[in-house]
């Protein structure tokens, strides 16, 4: 999957949840949205990009959310 599109989409999700006053809520909101709406190929490709350093354009809040909720977002794919 096109990693740039995925990063762009993830960052857009991040910018919606960035308004949450508590960053933990924001990270949980981002992860929950991705879990509920992204197909497994998309989640896997995004993490592959993250792990290989191709996803440096991810907003910090989104990277943090992905790191924190890695198991939930990839675990279901296993």
């Amino acid at each position, binding site marked *: *999957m*096109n990693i740039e599109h995925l990063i762009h989409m993830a960052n*857009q999700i991040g*910018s*919606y949840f960035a*308004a949450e006053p508590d960053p933990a809520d924001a990270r949980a909101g981002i992860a929950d*949205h991705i879990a509920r709406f992204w*197909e497994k*190929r998309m989640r896997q490709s995004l993490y592959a990009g993250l792990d290989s350093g191709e996803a440096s354009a991810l907003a910090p809040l989104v990277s943090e959310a992905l790191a924190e909720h890695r198991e939930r977002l990839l675990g*279901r794919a296993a």
Partner: protein
Amino acid sequence: MSLHCHHDRGTPARVSTERVTLSIDGMSVTVPAGTSILHAAAEAGVDIPKLCATESLEAFGSCRLCVVQVKNRRGYPASCTTLVEEGMEVTTENDALFRLRRGVMELYISDHPLDCLTCSANGNCELQDMAGRVGLREVRYADGHNHLAEAADASNPYFNYDPAKCIVCSRCVRACGEVQGTFALTTTERGFDSRIAAAGGTDFLSSECVSCGACVAACPTAALMEKSVIELGQPQRSVTTTCAYCGVGCSLNAELQGEKLVRMVPDPSGGANHGHACVKGRFAWGYATHADRITTPMIRKSIRDPWQAVSWEEAIAHTAAEFRRLQEKHGAESIGSITSSRCTNEETFLVQKLTRAAFGVNNVDTCARVCHSPTGYGLKQTLGESAGTQDFDSVMQADVILLIGANPTDGHPVFGSRMKQRLRQGAKLIVADPRAIDLVDTPHVRAAHHLKLRPGTNVALINALAHVVVSEGLVDEAFVALRCEPEAFAKWRTFIADPRHSPEATEEVTGVPAAEMRAAARLYATTGNGAIYYGLGVTEHSQGSTMVIGIANLAMATGNIGRPGVGVNPLRGQNNVQGSCDMGSFPHELPGYRHVSDVETRTLFESVWGVPLSDEPGLRIPNMFDAAISGSFKGLYVQGEDIAQSDPNTHHVTAALESLECLVVQDLFLNETAKFAHVFLPGASFLEKDGTFTNAERRISRVRKVMRPLAEYADWEVTQMLSNALGYPMNYRHPSEIMDEIARLMPTFHGVSYEKLDRLGSVQWPCNETHPEGTPTMHIDEFVRGKGRFMLTEYVATEERVNRRFPLLLTTGRILSQYNVGAQTRRTANTVWHPEDILELHPVDAEDRGIREGDWVGVQSRAGETVLRAKISERMQPGVVYTTFHWPGSGANVVTTENSDWATNCPEYKVTAVQITRVEQPSVWQKQFERFSEEQMSLLKASTEAKPAHASV
């Protein structure tokens, strides 16, 4: 005059708690106060002769055929304009009345051609009926001055006006004003010389007439008559069905001779339309039998090969074998489907069932992705249900209407007419739209505020309105305390009260003066019932979902939800957008908007469908395109959609389609998508099948078969054959059995059945044990999710910004006479009103570029370039240009980008940064498109010339 036996009681029914009892010909009758004698008599079974009165219009009292006598009153009052009074004693027949009526008829007939035998209204003419009713036997002044030689106006493609047959009853004039709200007709002159004229032109076609046909339906004679009736004669039978165009979902009576459709007449008892329709539903049905229909299945190996006509068995077996081959080679997830908002609920349900149960994946999406997916998301999150909160009739109780990013008089014409009725009664209107839509200033309607915002700044605007509500103490505290989650509200209140959301802080962004925003917010929050209506101008943005949430927040904060006259009302685009979403067309949801990971729901479906179901969300349309290009998505079944024309960034879409190994298109025509297909399965039009559509007010209405499918099978039967060929058995004998399964599986449909729909006409879901006859207004005592949930709506500017290279913003929309990608309306006479897509731009922008009216202009964006003809228009604001996307060769979507809504990937059609230049020739894309289309048409020709045979591909 329609064939359907609707008992016309002469004047509109009245609603009143006060009851009046009177006697009519010695019979006692009790009716609501305000009722006419004519109507009361009809209730008592006495049909007083009448000509100028009809139930759909206010009485006018001009023909004097309806005269009666009232005890202790002098003279002979007209019963249509005289209201009932307590104790009144009315006589409808005696010698004096008989003579009076006969005299009236004699005068009418003396100026009327006596060609009844050859007249198109023969057998269905009120004048003829009344002449018989009053016992007219001779006409004494037949040779006097008359209008019999006047020429007919045949300019409108669908109906004629023959002044020789006009009795100047003014029903048409009143219908155009009262029902349609266009006020295109007038009565010219007075007395004997008086005639009907269409204003603003020399004939009907060049006038302000929008061809809704209300005047034709109201005309008691053959003066206004459908051309199809003139050509074919009077219909013999009538079948009630539902319009297959827009989300209003008008109920129409298809009037037929055998299987031949003669005309469509709106059904007076239709819950959505109450007897009205528009130019599309009433007249533009000729596409259904157009010569371009493909009625034989076809297959081919590559898109550069000629099509081969094959039998149904072969086409289905080939498709099944291809899909299984792809799944074996590339994995189960390598195939998917797209359901159609133009197909029935039953058909959509079957396609998603095929995908989930037979393909074993959740890769199913629908064209609602590109229009109202943010509505589904935003309303579900805040209110708990992915649907509008009201019925259409609710608008008649609204005191102030906030209309955002919708153009109902073009996009949802029958609802637009209804809204205009309410506005003429005095409701206030606030329009938020970059463009001056008709409702901003139209006969007898003027918006109190037109918030002419910049495209892409909706969220900043809704935040500013909410900020005023919160900071000026306009919150309905009692409602919020009782009905909404307190913590979420407190968080939102703090958020929205921040000065960064104030009108003053955001006017720079939105371009709307702060004072105007404040005044509009106050008007909405303080004028009784406030109702919000919105369209694709809300959803088709990178913040579409945020905006829907913002709208729900505003409605909750002001207590404008949960009763008639208020609410949040999405105006859906296509006829069955609501239905296709309800039926589980989204890749993350099973029917009834329940997430695929929800174990309880999945278990229920697994037990009924007898297969394990995936708990993983599938691919959305744009994700399918990306996956196709990256090589992991290979096969797609598209029912009744034209993604190659309707989806944004055409270059990207066609690249994706070309990457597929098996694209199966089921459609009426070889549409743009089918030009990339390997299998073509002929579709059936809405006239050829049974089913249901669900309109924008959640109203489920029956679609009824009026003719046999031209290609042998209804669409649901084809899906069923494919499923059986894939080894997953489906054995429905009739769509009613599919509905029974839907009712079993969806709690909001538990009470729905064909028997009930036949009995009630239509029903609005939720329809179940607690609401057996449906639910016109939702969220009355509590929200579907329990407590309403306020959510934060930070404004995030779209990335699609103007710069030096692309200094203008392009926004897109549609017009009345054409529909969506135009596959249907382009194949009707509606093209006289819109022969091509044009680019509207402001005079200042035109002058800066040396562009004159009618010039060819190139429209360039970062996605691509196309060429359109320019129309210079003050409707636009400087810096904003506008076009429609009804013609494939216009390439509007070559220019739009794949920017999309953050939550749902609904494309940002409404904002594209562009440059406009004068050009002399079509764009490179358009030339390629022409070449490709010609090639594909010649590959099609090869197949239609060869007879269906056993081809081997």
